[in-house]
């Protein structure tokens, strides 16, 4: 089974749920945790992780041989991302805009364009706290997070229960993390911001035909608007984590709360059973 933990709004507790769920289940079955928030990966802060393997994720950037270039403009015309411009007898490549599709090299009539790899980020994998762990890290200043997430998903071992920690938002990186999951577990808080972004996340999961379940975190702050929404939409609320200074303090220090509040381990195991039912119903 593949569980993607997402939220829409940032800071609602995705990482908390992902890490505590992985630790609780790893005592009973093979688990793999994958941190897909490659822009701001945080899972490792809560784990004893040393990467056994590190590999680059690259995109191919065009290199123009100006001796061969006739400035015909076919590459600039073909590029859907406006990543190449020709100004008189000068050709400019905007690396940040380039998606690395290779079309410019294909259309060039003189073979003036070759492609060279450019690192977008890295993937680290290994063992942590009794389970398999992998994370992607986008290099500072790079814009394209999704290729790293797609390659992270190549790390998934079908013999393991996979838990994917998605990035916040509802854009391409979040879609990449939810695409192909058996269930999207959406972590929210019952505030106007939380509900607004939960709706958006539900919209994304449904557009990808992935079933959803909701966890209300910091239960007790805010009001009952998330419960009303879930009741109206027929979305199961599978766990409520109360607002507690103790949980917040453990989080702040990078300690998974199931390590101190051990009664929560069973609750995460029960949660997993509930998720199996939602995923197959």
């Amino acid at each position, binding site marked *: 089974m593949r569980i993607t933990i997402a*939220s*829409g*709004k*940032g*800071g*609602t507790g995705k*990482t908390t749920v992902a890490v505590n769920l992985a630790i609780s289940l790893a005592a009973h079955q093979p688990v793999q945790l994958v941190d897909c*928030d*490659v*822009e*701001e990966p*945080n899972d490792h*802060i809560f784990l004893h992780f040393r990467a056994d393997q590190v590999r680059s994720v690259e995109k*191919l950037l065009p290199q123009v041989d100006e001796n061969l270039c006739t400035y015909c403009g076919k590459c600039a015309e*073909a590029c*859907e*991302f406006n990543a190449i411009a020709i100004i008189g007898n000068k050709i400019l490549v905007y690396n*940040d805009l380039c*998606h*690395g*599709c290779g*079309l410019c090299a*294909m*259309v060039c009539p003189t073979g003036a364009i070759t492609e060279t790899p450019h690192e977008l980020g890295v993937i680290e994998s290994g063992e942590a706290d009794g389970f398999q762990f992998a994370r992607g890290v*986008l290099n*500072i*200043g790079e*814009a*394209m*997070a999704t290729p790293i997430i*797609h390659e992270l998903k190549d790390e998934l071992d079908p013999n393991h229960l996979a838990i994917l920690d998605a*990035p*916040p*938002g*509802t*854009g*391409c*990186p*979040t*879609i990449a993390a939810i*695409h192909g999951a058996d269930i999207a577990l959406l972590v929210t808080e019952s*505030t*106007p*911001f939380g509900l*607004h*972004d939960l709706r*958006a996340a539900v*919209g*994304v999961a449904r*557009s*990808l035909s992935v079933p959803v379940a909701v966890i209300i975190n910091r239960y007790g*702050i*805010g*009001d009952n608007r998330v419960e009303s929404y879930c009741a109206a939409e027929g979305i199961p609320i599978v766990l409520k984590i109360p607002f507690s*200074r103790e949980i917040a*303090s453990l*989080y*702040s*220090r*990078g300690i998974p709360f199931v390590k101190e509040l051990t009664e929560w381990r069973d609750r995460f195991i029960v949660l997993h059973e509930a998720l199996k039912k939602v995923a197959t119903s």
Partner: protein
Amino acid sequence: MKHTLFLSGKGGTGKTSLAGAFAVLTQGKVLADCDVDAANLYLLLEPQIVSEGVFQGIKLAIKDNDKCTACGKCREVCRFRAIDEQFNIDSYMCEGCGACAYVCPTDAITLSLVDCGRWYTAATRLGPLAGAELYPGEETSGKLVAMVKEKAMKLAEEAELQTLLSDGSPGIGCPVIASISGVSSVILVTEPTLSGLHDLERILGVVEHFGVPAYLVINKADLNTTISTQIEGFAQRRKLAILGQIPYDDKVTKMMIQGKSAVEDQESPAGKAMREIFSRFAEILK
């Protein structure tokens, strides 16, 4: 134009709450919600839509199965895993580059523009606002952010206003980079957790990479004073000026539920801290 952008790296640290407070306290400004994935600023503003439209950001490859001979050339050239073994195109994977259409010998594939979201401008209780929302499952938030900024600049021009406040999105990738270009200062909002500090370091790297002056605010600073001190040390080493610290205060959420900012509650300790941060920032901009 004084253009201030609120960023954080980590989500949920309080960007929108602080941007909302600045919106209450700043005279004569335009607001832009550049978090098009999870746009929340308008929830504090009582917006009345003035103009709106559909945003078509990207093209997607569409195949005419009657013309397709299943030759597989498209799948060979696609670098985005968007074409499966049966040569179906997965629209969620397609980047709209057009390589498949170029190599197709029977012209079975065409690129067509898709509706990705909706942009709007609005009159609000705190001034003109430009914003947008991505449709569920749609992409290209970067281009949509660029469009929101363009609309906001135009609003400022029309109203002859010199101040623009933009609420950004979490992360360090595409939409964040799109929101940074051209701004005059970035206010980074962090929280005293190891995750907050880790993410601050990465977003500061991005802001420095683009050469924009940055200032720091530590939100919920009293939730872990040890880590708040650690963040202060980090800021000092990186020559990042701290505008102030905001204490944890449940009035922030209570006011949010009423669609208001904490600075609109005279009793709120967080509101008081935000007013001080605002004055300090105004002093620096002078």
